[in-house]
């Protein structure tokens, strides 16, 4: 009998359908690997199963009975455990308290710590974690925290665990240890939904593999012994009809040259490449590969341990955003609301931000200058809003245009865009692609980071692939097929 069955699960957010009629069965003691690119619908599916979001249509059943969790608590009562990619533990409470949080065992009106520590200890030992249950969670390794999470789910009586990228932060030995525990729990009848990007792991641990693409369940393999190339083709699929602008060939003149760049925080190591005038340089890789950290370091936002950046032959002072901007390197950051715009300020003020040196005369920055400047930019980039309107009132696409417009006004030499179209609807996307093409046509060196492979391949003249902070290869567009890029990114 299936522990969990999904029939025709569909979910839309606004006009965007993220899941199209998904059918899925997870049997007792079975591990189903759920694969797909970023945005394929894996997280939405996990949220629906774990009671965080209701589906728009479709039905679910749990051990034969109808299952429609009203809340995560409801899902947990049924026997479901969701282990998040980022741990959701309370760092200053003890391991045992974390395991029993929300249902601390009581005895004579006081917390029964002896019982709690004993029970937590038993579970942890069964999972192979040999630490005192009374020590605080803070300072535990990621692997150990994950085991605490699993122990917590098991004491709650979980019979189906959803693991979201469980090995993303684990080393090889820790991964093998996790797999040994998964096998043991499977033998005891616990079922798993296992979300991962790491294809080579799948063959080791999965019983079946399902692949999502653009919200459709495109493939089900009843064995994990599937060639990686087949899985990649399933994940990437045929090009969806996206329209990318015509890109002109770049010049031969390198604008920016990066050599041996290594992050101070350890996010990336020994990166080297150069970008020519008029070139769109794409950076691909899975989440956590170090792409954002790399472009932030180039823009001076984060400190660098070693390496050099030269701009038209002159060295750049690293780790200083003001210096990078002055020299003509600008960044449109990934986190638009947190790092791109001041939400409660007007479009005009947001546009003037970073341009004060050009707009002011002897330090005087007059409101009418700012308004005139903003009106011009709003018109030029087609921002749907008036200059005095607050940035908060704009759609994501228009907020993004404001951030881009701010930097366009400086006519920079290197234009970096990190996830420029994330969370933006198709119409605004096309407009942003046109802007990127125009920037390159104006002779700028454009660097685009995107988790959307189609986007990278559709825009870039050259693609660099990062995996775990290492540079896996720099491919010219002709050599950069989606399968080749995914191979490098998941290696």
């Amino acid at each position: 009998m299936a522990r969990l069955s999904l029939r025709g699960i569909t979910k839309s957010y606004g006009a965007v359908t993220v899941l199209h009629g998904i059918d899925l069965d997870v049997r007792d003691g079975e591990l189903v690997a759920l694969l797909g690119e970023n945005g394929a619908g894996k997280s939405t599916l996990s949220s629906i199963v774990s009671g965080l979001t209701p589906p728009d249509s479709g039905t679910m059943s749990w051990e034969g009975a109808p299952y429609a969790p009203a809340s995560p608590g409801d899902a947990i009562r049924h026997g479901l455990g969701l282990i998040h990619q980022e741990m959701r533990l309370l760092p200053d409470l003890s391991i045992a308290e974390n395991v029993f949080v929300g249902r601390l065992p009581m005895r004579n009106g006081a917390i029964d710590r002896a019982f709690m520590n004993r029970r937590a200890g038993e579970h942890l030992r069964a999972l192979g974690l040999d630490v005192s249950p009374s020590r605080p969670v803070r300072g535990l390794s990621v692997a150990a925290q994950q085991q605490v999470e699993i122990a917590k789910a098991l004491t709650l009586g979980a019979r189906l665990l959803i693991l979201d990228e469980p090995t993303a932060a684990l080393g090889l030995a820790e991964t093998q240890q996790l797999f040994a525990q998964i096998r043991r729990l499977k033998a005891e009848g616990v079922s798993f939904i296992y979300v991962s990007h790491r294809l080579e792991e799948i063959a080791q641990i999965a019983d079946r593999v399902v692949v999502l693409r653009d919200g459709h369940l495109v493939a089900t393999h009843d064995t994990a012994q599937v060639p990686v190339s087949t899985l990649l083709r399933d994940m990437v699929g045929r090009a969806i009809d996206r329209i990318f602008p015509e890109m002109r060939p770049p010049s031969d003149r390198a604008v920016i040259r990066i050599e041996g760049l290594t992050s101070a925080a350890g996010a990336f190591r020994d990166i080297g490449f150069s970008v020519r005038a008029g070139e769109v340089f794409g950076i691909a890789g899975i989440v956590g590969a170090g792409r954002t950290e790399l472009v932030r370091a180039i823009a001076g936002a984060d400190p660098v341990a070693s390496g050099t950046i030269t701009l038209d032959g002159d060295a750049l002072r690293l780790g200083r955003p003001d210096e990078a901007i002055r020299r003509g390197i600008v960044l449109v950051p990934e986190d638009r609301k947190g790092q791109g715009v001041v939400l409660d300020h007007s479009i005009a003020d947001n546009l003037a931000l970073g341009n004060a040196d050009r707009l002011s005369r002897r330090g005087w920055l007059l409101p009418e200058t700012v308004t005139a400047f903003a009106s011009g930019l709003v018109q030029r980039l087609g921002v749907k809003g008036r200059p005095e309107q607050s940035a908060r009132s704009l759609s994501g696409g228009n907020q993004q245009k404001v951030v881009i417009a701010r930097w366009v006004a400086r006519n920079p030499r290197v234009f970096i865009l990190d996830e420029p179209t994330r969370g933006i609807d198709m119409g605004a996307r096309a407009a942003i692609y046109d802007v990127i093409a125009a920037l390159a046509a104006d002779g700028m060196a454009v660097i685009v980071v995107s988790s959307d492979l189609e986007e990278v391949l559709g825009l870039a003249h050259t693609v660099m692939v990062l995996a775990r902070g290492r540079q896996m290869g720099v491919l010219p567009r002709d050599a950069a097929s989606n399968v080749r890029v995914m191979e490098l990114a998941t290696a």
Partner: protein
Amino acid sequence: MSLQPALSAKAIPAARRRSLASLLSGAQGPLIGLVLLCVVFALTTNVFLTLRNALNVVDQVTTLGILALGMTGVIIIGGIDLSVGSILALSIMVLGWLPQQYGVPFPLALLLCILTGGLCGIVNGLLVTRARLPAFIATLTMMSVARGLANITTDGQQVVGYPDWFTALATERHLGILSATVGLFVALSLGAWVFLRYRATGRSLYAIGGSAEVARLAGIPVRKLTVAVYAASGLLAGVAAAVMAARLDSSQPSAGLGYELDAIAAVVIGGASLSGGIGSIAGTVVGVFIIGVLHNGLNLVGISPFIQQVVIGVVIAVAVTFDTLRRKA
């Protein structure tokens, strides 16, 4: 399509016309409140609406007003300064104690009084930017330290008697209206207003308060400006100390007790947001006068100081509630 920028400074005529009305931009709500208060007190007392009383109110708010100017900058960058009352006390004691104890020439003591405030402010700024203390904690410690130092100077004793020319700054009304200290407050307010509205650096403070990370990524020297803002707040506390000494012709280590809260209240009544990025000098000045007029009017009506505290608390709650609702609408 070419995106080559053409930085045209074509001014929109409408913007110029608006600039007069925008003198009070963001302060209209509090201003209406102030006018209402004045109407109420004018109707309930005979004395309120006299030039003499008006000048009294202005005299009484100068110290608080000068503190509130600095506080406006601090709150705009998303900070808070709990130490201005204590810094005022330390500065005022420096002014009284140095000439009395060590025979320091008075003009030099006056300079040191103001610089002491600035120095305390710089320490606040460094605690916030370098030691990464939350502004609340950093200035809370300064509040305690400066008050302690103020008491240490004279072992808690007051110092009485300043040169006549100095006390005349607060008491002698030129043209029958403006004392030098009030003139100083007016000048400082105008300066701060112009700075925050028309200087690129002033505009940057709003960006820092709106989002320090956005500001940093836009190339604004966030740490440097943060230190400068706290330094200015301290410096203005030093100036306020001198004004108070001239008015009272004495220095007490208990001076300015609780003034930081009045200053914060004035800024917030004036429409500033404690989460930063929003606020104006015009609003703050209106807020200062709301507090001043309330004290003055309630005194004239004969309401006890205890009840006055209750009323002022309620006024702050009402003012901020209205402002929050208006912003949401």
